[in-house]
């Protein structure tokens, strides 16, 4: 699914356009306040830009003019629930009143599937995230790593056309990060994904391409390894300091 995005939001000094190709994972890098999370919120429909246009798989998500009267076509703004752009945030945000299984079944249920079919689908995704044994628990009884795995399963069960990951590993215990990274590596293959991260390792492991933002604009972009091997900005140079990219691509992960 191709995702084409162009938006201006003056309140947050954002002016960015980019494309995510089918099956591609694009990492957004940049210092705090550079506009990474704003792009995610605008893509998800949680924030309305002043102007711009985004399409997903040919469908218009928003099409807003600075002065709507001055052009031939009307403004379009799809609400979040009609976009199938699922957000996975820093916090797992599992619904505390629902069991793990019902959390994962929430997306299919909202899409109109029967309770039984939704639960069946939920069990499949819980198995894919290797947390089947947690299905009957309440979110309050999970560790941070377990909760984030369930959140991944819930996001995928909603069959997103575009997956939005906003620093999905920042809030995790250090010990839980490698396993989570491997899980994401496995499930993100062949999906269109925007990944906001502060960690160059996440970008290397998960992203085909990186976009570096500075003050709401794109300052650098390209294939992950190429950008990291020849950083053009101080931010990227500092971010990748000490990373040795001369050894070639990493060996494929054989087991999780």
């Amino acid at each position, binding site marked *: 699914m191709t995702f084409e995005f162009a938006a201006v939001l003056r309140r947050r000094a954002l002016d960015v356009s980019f494309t995510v190709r089918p099956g591609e994972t694009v990492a957004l890098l940049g210092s705090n306040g550079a506009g990474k999370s704003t792009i995610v919120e605008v893509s998800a429909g949680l924030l309305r830009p002043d102007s711009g246009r985004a399409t997903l798989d040919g469908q218009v998500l928003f099409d807003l003019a600075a002065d709507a009267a001055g052009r031939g076509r009307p403004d379009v703004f799809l609400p979040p*629930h009609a976009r199938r752009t*699922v957000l996975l945030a820093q916090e797992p945000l599992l*619904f505390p009143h629902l069991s793990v299984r019902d959390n994962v079944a929430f997306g299919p249920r909202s899409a109109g599937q029967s309770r039984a079919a939704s639960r069946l689908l939920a069990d499949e995704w819980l198995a894919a995230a290797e947390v089947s044994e947690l299905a009957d628990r309440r979110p309050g009884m999970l560790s941070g790593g377990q909760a984030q795995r369930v959140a991944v399963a819930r996001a995928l069960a*909603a069959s997103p056309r575009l997956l939005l990951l906003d620093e999905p590993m920042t809030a995790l215990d250090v010990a839980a990060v490698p396993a989570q990274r491997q899980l994401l590596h496995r499930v993100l293959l062949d999906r269109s994904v925007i990944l906001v991260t502060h960690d160059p390792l996440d970008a290397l492991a998960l992203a085909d391409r990186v976009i570096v933002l500075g003050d709401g604009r794109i300052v650098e972009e390209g294939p992950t390894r190429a950008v990291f091997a020849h950083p053009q900005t101080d931010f990227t140079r500092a971010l990748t300091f000490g990373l040795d990219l001369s050894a070639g691509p990493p060996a494929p992960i054989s087991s999780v």
Partner: protein
Amino acid sequence: MTLGVPRWTLAVAAVGALFIVLPIVGMTLRVEWSQFGALVTSEASVAALLLSLRTAAMSTVLCLLFGVPMALALARSRFPGQRLVRAVVLLPLVLPPVVGGIALLSTFGRRGLLGETFEVLGIQIAFSTTAVVLAQTFVALPFLVLSVEATLRASGARFEAVAATLGATPGTVLRRVTLPLVLPGLISGAVLAFARALGEFGATLTFAGSLQGVTRTLPLEIYLQRETDADAAVALALVLVAVALIVMVATHRPRGLS
């Protein structure tokens, strides 16, 4: 974890608690237990108690029906004049109930703003059981709105945002995420509203009058009995205390303990 508090706060707190407990104890000691049964089961008393329970329950339902959308509007949306609207909605909290009664009478009374319209339709609201329910709803509604709005703000909109990106329409988000999340605030708000409605006196007397079986609720009956039969008034007062206490203990839990 137990966090220590300075001992003097406990001493002051004990004095404060005594200030509330002592008058209740004092009243209990004045009850003529030999006549208690006869006093609280008299026809007038039973009629007043049943009317109070019935009208307070109806008021609580009205508070829930209108208060939850009001709390949602105040906590989850932005509109011009929102601060003013909140202040006006919460006005009955600080208004003397008799003023509320006069306001209701000026609106729904026979010569009131809407009264003539209702008159034409053959409906007379003032001095009816409907008026009791309206008076109680008027004073109790802010308790529910305040409680639910506070819970909505505390729970934040992040769960709702995630639910929306998972494909849930606003209606589904409200039903499956928002309302379950604010359930504790909803329950404690409803309990407070019920208790406030149960104790309503001033607005009821002004707007609904004091007709046995129709508008004379338990607080009105207690006030009336006090003029003629002090023992009966004390006995009924104890019944009201007991009902209020049962409701509070059974359902009201402070937030954070559930």
